[in-house]
């Protein structure tokens, strides 16, 4: 049963333009079974999910571990197809990207080369990434290490590079899974500020978070996902409050 909050955040909202619509969507994982372990392992991570994501909105998704948040992100990012229901992308060539740090870094390539490679994995062309190298270099604060192979990096430097690259990919729809700032104190401040700037303007953002406070602060709409379905949706304040008061009822 879905809890719907009726109050609207603005008295007279403009008609929203949908960018992605999920209609009764379901995702099922069926990993390989072994001859000696025939337990049917069919896990429906999402079921009967109907959701409209509008252009320019900042949607916060809250929920406990294993409730299907990340699966929802992969469905939106077109990494998975739905096993049930339908997903409609309303505009052709909408670039939807999951914010990921340092994915696919090759230890033997330099920071500069990895920046280009990683950007290409996230949907940008080589030329575009090459043109953003100065910004990436500067933001990462890696100095001369930018031209050293990545295997010489500390884990902190790795995330710095990964984050700086991710900040330059600028997709139409940005999906953020729990990453709101990384690195040491200084870079943490810088990175969370840069990320929060992504919430300004007309970009569409979906944010997964365990923190009701962050959802309240950053989003314009929120939903609570529980066992692959929407348990509640409404304004961030309403959903955050409802979540805080009721989440313990769902913990066994």
């Amino acid at each position, binding site marked *: 049963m879905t809890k719907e909050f009726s109050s609207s955040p603005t008295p007279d909202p403009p008609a929203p333009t949908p960018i992605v619509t999920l209609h009764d969507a379901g*995702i099922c*994982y069926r990993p*390989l079974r072994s001859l000696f372990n025939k337990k049917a392992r069919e896990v429906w991570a999402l079921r009967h999910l109907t959701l409209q994501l509008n252009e320019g909105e900042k949607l916060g998704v809250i929920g406990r571990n294993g409730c299907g948040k990340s699966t929802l992100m992969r469905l939106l990012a077109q*990494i998975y197809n739905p096993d049930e229901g339908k997903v409609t992308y309303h505009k052709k060539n909408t670039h939807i990207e999951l914010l990921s740090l340092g994915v696919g870094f090759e230890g*033997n*390539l330099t920071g500069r080369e990895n920046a280009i*490679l990683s950007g*290409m*994995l996230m949907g940008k*062309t080589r030329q575009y990434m090459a043109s953003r190298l100065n910004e990436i270099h500067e933001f990462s604060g890696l100095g001369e290490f930018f031209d050293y192979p990545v295997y010489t990096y500390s884990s902190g430097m790795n995330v710095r590079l990964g984050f700086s690259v991710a900040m330059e990919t600028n997709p139409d729809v940005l999906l953020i899974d729990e990453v709101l700032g990384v690195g040491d104190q200084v870079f943490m401040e810088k990175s969370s500020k840069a990320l929060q700037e992504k919430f300004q303007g007309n970009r569409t953002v979906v944010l997964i978070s365990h923190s009701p406070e962050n959802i309240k602060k950053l989003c314009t709409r929120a939903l609570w996902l529980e066992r692959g379905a929407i348990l509640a949706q409404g304004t961030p304040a309403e959903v955050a409050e409802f979540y805080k008061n009721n989440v313990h009822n769902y913990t066994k």
Partner: protein
Amino acid sequence: MFFQTLKRHFDIIFYRTVAGIKSEGRQRYLGYLWFLLEPILSTAVFYLAYSQITGAKGARTILLILIGMILWQWFEGSIMVAAGSIKAKFHVLNQCNLPKYLFPMVSIAVHTWKFLCVSMVIFLLAALLGHPPNAYWLYLPILFILQLALIASIAMPIAIGVTLWTDLQIVVSSIFRMFFFLSGIFFEISSVPESLQRYFFWNPMAALIDSGRAIILRAEAPAWGHLTPAILLTLLMLLLGALLHAHYDKRILKLTNA
């Protein structure tokens, strides 16, 4: 937009290939030299064993085994590494919306580069050992492209198969071991009984290896007719690969327990 995406995928393959070659080169003390040493070592082993059994000795036998060896290693190495490449890059594919054929292509490109390096050694060695370049060498690029197409066409369906059903990797490697002995790597097909030869040539790799030897060792044009099975198998597997990739591209990660 379509071409832009295609170009981006090509760039990813290119960069990944460069990274793959670099990292193989940096893993060992002798680095890139192993691209050349590896086939030479295995040729030495086979030459020692084979020449003791059959008494066939000399430069021609060495070249014969070397040609068979590098063509086979290009074939088997590419396909076996490509087969595991989707699973190996599971974490990347789980974060980025990428077609699943990219990483198998990278494995093939890395092995093709290694093959091209070592084939230079063969050309040099052949010239030094009394088989200088001849006009038929112009056919070599055609043979290489045909073998590359064969490799890619076999690797694509196998890469999906192995990702869904890991057991297939063991089955495939056993089948390859059998074909290793049936492809005439350390003997010539002309040395098997005549009644059996036509069956040997149904095997695409046997035909490709024999064609390479025809050009380099016998200074004659390849028997194009023998290459028909290679072309047919390539077309068949390309179709199968395209169907499997189209069906599983967005599904496969949900069906894998990596």
